[in-house]
């Protein structure tokens, strides 16, 4: 059983991940290219839907371990976006970011 604090944190961070990805779909910083826009948009939509589904869950019924996994996944994906926005060096491709974000979506949905 997960505490309300941790579920709230995961929910908030998932929403933030989605928001950051919508910004990336708008601004398209490297390594993202213009052709990546539809994929960013659609993945951000998946993040939003995952958050929305998560919001309706009863915290008492979610396992703590799953929350931990999801928090790590969302943290890792957010770190990619933070790196793109706040640093000069990027040693990764857009595929890495897409994969990390997809892993977050899966982990959040797995809490149900």
């Amino acid at each position, binding site marked *: 059983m997960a505490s309300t604090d941790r579920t*709230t944190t995961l929910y908030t961070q998932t929403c933030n991940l989605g*928001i950051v990805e919508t910004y990336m779909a708008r601004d398209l910083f490297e390594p993202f290219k213009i052709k990546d826009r539809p994929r960013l*948009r659609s993945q951000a*939509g998946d993040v939003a839907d995952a958050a929305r589904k998560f919001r309706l869950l009863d915290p008492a019924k979610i396992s703590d371990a799953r929350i931990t996994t999801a928090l790590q996944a969302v943290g890792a994906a957010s770190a990619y976006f933070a790196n793109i926005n706040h640093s000069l060096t990027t040693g990764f491709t857009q595929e890495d970011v897409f994969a990390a974000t997809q892993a977050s979506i899966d982990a959040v949905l797995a809490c149900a």
Partner: protein
Amino acid sequence: MVVRLYVAVLPCVAIAVACLVGCQSVVYKDAASSYVTSGRVLTKQIGDTTSSLAAAQDRLKLAKIATDAQCPISENRLFVRDAPGNPVFGNAINASPKLRAMDECRQLVTCEKSHTTSTCARACYSREEGKCVMQIELDLANASQAPDPAPSTVESANAVAKRIQEVEYGRTATTQSKIVIQTLGILTGYLDILDKLAEARTSDIQANTKDFSDKATDAYNGLSQLTGRELSSSDKKTRDNVASAVTAFGKLAGDISKMVQEGRDADGIKAYVAQHADDVPNLISAIRPLVKSDALLADLYTNLGALDIRQALEKQYAGTKDAYTRMLIFSDRDKYQFADTKKLQANLDAAFDALLQSHNSLVALIRNPSDEQQQKLRSASWESFKLLASDFNGAFQAFRAF
């Protein structure tokens, strides 16, 4: 004339002088401005923020509906398809012989499984499927409102409520936003009573507490009436938390009113208020995360909507032959902006902090009326409360770009 003017000015000067000497920075509020009147604006804005989540999701659904010329838009309720494979409606239909026998429901079962046939590939649920969804909802709501419903019935009613929230267009004010609005109304009413207690205006307290007690009862009844039809399981938990706090407020107001009527001494009333000093912080901490997180998700959907609608605009712009129409289309472009997430979240925090701070300084002042520090705090928090009520409006307008 001059004399009359002088007479009119004199009391003001007297008050000002008296204040310089004795009342420090206690704010004199005119009759029309109170926590309730200022709070009404704030309450509406916060309530609107909560329901903006529904509005933002609806914009996405609207974009989807618009892709399909065959959506049955004359219907009162419209349901929009998402990915196939969700078992909720199918399970509900299977559990009921009546629903199983309906042709409309058979179609719904097929389309929830896969979107391969032409009917199922549409963007909206067909008229027939919509009829079945409404029937499922009605039957389950009736079954779960029977005395002592089976736990499985309540559970599937909740699952269906959740599912409908996912697919229905225009499911406007969410339960949570109703809860938030009711609660904030109660909260500002209570702050008003504390304010009068702090000023020891006993006659006002009597009238106020009676009114407040009635309102709290109404709010509590309102919360209880949000039945299984609209509630998902976590909404229900929220409702229970908030409802118990609202009941506590109603009782508190009733008790204070009774004490005032019985002519109980001021110290007794003060002690009572101090005893219940934790109720308000508890209530605020119950609704703060609700409002903030809904606002966050609303921002995300707002951004998604902005991306989609700008794409659609560009397409229309490209397909338009004359320059004037292109200009009209272009002028729409600015309406679809990203949400100012940071500002809105900060404003929400400030709003709840102002409520909390007002309450704390009022309680402290009731405990110790001669405390100058608390008097200053009280007037400062009243000012920030008022400011917020007006400023929040501006922030909110910026947030709701479309």
